[in-house]
């Protein structure tokens, strides 16, 4: 009988409800689901636990993992294959190519995706924008113009939480918005030194400095949801945050497209964060059977839909009907399609999709140091290139 012990960090009410669907399906198929939630630090705590589990030879059957860390774990010899399920279910057809890349280890599937988060969203308070006569910004120039105007009116333009990962989230949105998809890929996926030291990168840091001017003094250490609450309460106009912020708006009784808007500064590009389950090498038929079943159900249409309705993201497989999704979800899905076609579907560096931990960490160290001090853009660029070189 299939067994699954699942390590994840979806512990808030909405998230829990979302994964619960999977558990119910899993148990309906005769499996036993053992829940192993570890929240905290955006998965840091879970990763700590995972490492201890793997080292003690007691790996969980499935783990919420994403991006390059899947490959990293595979290289450590810890991951198993679910190629059989993937072939049987024809995953190659159902998933965008860019995303398949993250899930495959040496050409075989070793992880199953659950969703696609869009990172580069600008959330805005509809009534403020209407009062100021501003459209939701679509480029950084528009954003700057809008922010100037709002500032003139005594309204705080940008709600931001000063935590390293939030700084990074801002940063990558600026990189893709100013530099375009190619530049983004060179700079933050390939860590190309030319790109990192280019004039564009200097402009990126300039824009970061500009954004810093739109943020209140007390942003430091603020949780993202408190920043969202500022937008909801009309204390600030914008927040740049992944689509989970939507959940806060909805929980506060706001209607997407009416009470608040979602727009992207990325000019057609799309920064994604795909959560997935990776499957570790485990002993015992029951647990291996559990992995197969879990992989299959994860990619199931129903789960993909229900999970993402709850979570604010959109399904990873492309053939799920978006009818039940709200405005921003549908917009996200539509722009995803465009991005796939333009080849501007890009992995989020801030959320660990583009780089390995050490490299991403090195970039973030510089970004956050710059944002939280009066470092010049040139210095930041120099430090960035140095830190990246050192981390390789």
């Amino acid at each position: 009988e299939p067994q699954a012990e699942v390590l994840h960090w979806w512990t808030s009410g909405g998230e829990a409800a979302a994964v619960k669907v999977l558990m119910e399906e899993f148990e309906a198929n005769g499996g036993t689901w053992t829940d192993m939630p570890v929240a905290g630090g955006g998965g840091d705590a879970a990763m700590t636990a995972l490492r201890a589990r793997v080292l003690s030879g007691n790996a969980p059957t499935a783990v919420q993992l994403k991006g390059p860390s899947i490959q990293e774990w595979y290289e450590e010899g810890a991951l198993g294959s679910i190629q059989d399920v993937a072939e049987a279910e024809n995953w190659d057809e159902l998933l965008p190519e860019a995303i398949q890349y993250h899930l495959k280890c040496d050409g075989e599937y070793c992880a199953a995706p659950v969703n696609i988060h869009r990172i580069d969203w600008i959330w805005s308070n509809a009534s403020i924008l209407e009062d100021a006569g501003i459209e939701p910004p679509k480029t950084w120039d528009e954003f700057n113009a809008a922010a100037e105007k709002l500032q003139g009116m005594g309204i705080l333009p940008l709600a931001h939480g000063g935590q390293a990962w939030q700084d990074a989230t801002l940063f990558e949105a600026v990189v893709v918005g100013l530099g375009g998809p190619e530049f983004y890929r060179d700079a933050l996926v390939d860590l190309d030194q030319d790109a990192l030291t280019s004039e564009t990168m200097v402009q990126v840091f300039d824009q970061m400095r500009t954004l810093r001017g739109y943020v209140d003094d007390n942003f430091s250490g603020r949780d993202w949801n408190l920043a969202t609450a500022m937008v909801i309460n009309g204390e600030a106009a914008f927040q740049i945050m992944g689509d989970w912020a939507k959940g806060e708006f909805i929980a506060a009784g706001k209607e997407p497209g009416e009470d608040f808007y979602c727009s992207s500064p990325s000019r057609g590009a799309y920064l994604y964060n795909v959560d997935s389950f990776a499957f570790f090498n485990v002993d015992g038929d029951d647990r291996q059977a559990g992995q197969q079943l879990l992989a299959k159900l994860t990619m199931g249409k129903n789960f993909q839909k229900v999970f993402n309705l709850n979570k604010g993201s959109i399904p990873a497989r492309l053939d799920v009907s978006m009818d039940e999704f709200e405005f921003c979800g549908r917009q996200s899905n539509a722009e995803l399609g465009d991005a796939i076609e333009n080849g501007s579907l890009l992995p989020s560096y801030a959320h660990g999709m583009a780089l390995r931990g050490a490299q991403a960490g090195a970039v973030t160290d510089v970004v956050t140091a710059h944002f939280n001090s009066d470092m010049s853009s040139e210095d930041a660029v120099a430090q960035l290139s140095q830190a990246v070189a050192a981390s390789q």
Partner: protein
Amino acid sequence: MTDLSMNDHQLDERANRNRLMKRIALRLGLYTLLILFALYYLMPLFVMVVTSLKSLDEIRTGSLLSLPREIDFSSWGKAWSGACTGIQCNGLQPYFWNSVLLSIPAVAISTLLGAINGYVLAQWRFKGSNILFALMLFGCFIPFQVVLLPMAITLGALKIAGTIPGLMLVHIVYGIGFTTLFFRNFYVTIPQELVKAAKVDGAGFFRIFFSIFLPVSPPIIVVTVIWQFTQIWNDFLFGVSFSQAGTQPITVALNNIVNATTGVKEYNVDMAAAIIAALPTLLVYVVAGKYFIRGLTAGSVKG
């Protein structure tokens, strides 16, 4: 009596009054300061309690430090048995018992080990015993992050990874240093003649320990138990690393409630959960705090 001595008397009186006034002023200042400090210490607890009693709406809109407009206990119930700590939404309750199951034996065993180690190191010294004690003490100071990975490998090799006994082992091992320190410093104040008398009486090592030393140890046992219980109950790092589904201690669950990354935050529930998780240790401090100082005076402080 003569006039002169009357004067003396009046002078005495006035001096007395002045002294009294000065004393009262001093006392007043003293109490004021003490209360100010008390406020500093109570502030976080105040914030937590107040927040736990507010509704979510009020938290979103109001000042965090203001008193609740309406007292609402529902978040306490939710934290205990309804908050989501993962897929299950059973609150802290199941994890609470894990922690109880873990900490009581771990505290008992590490205290007993500390007692017997302290007994040896204080009363049965042998060549090199001081160096061994120093080596044990050094174990108190190792940062726990450092040992996570090798400990995981070791627990795996011992086949107790992810089990409560495994977690207990970790806590016991890293508690030994402190418990031994407490007991040793307590037992060195007991005259060696007691052991000698018992030896002549025919009692052996264990007999002396159980019949004579253990019965005099309550003060230091209190100190040790408080210390160990606080450490073990509050531990998160070991708890999260060396547990698996079903054996996670309460701190991990609390963390899951409080630190959800991309979900909606329910601060009132968070705070209620935090207080519930801290209740046992708080209780221990309130009930046994008196004995804590007494125990420290009795042994672990060298004056």
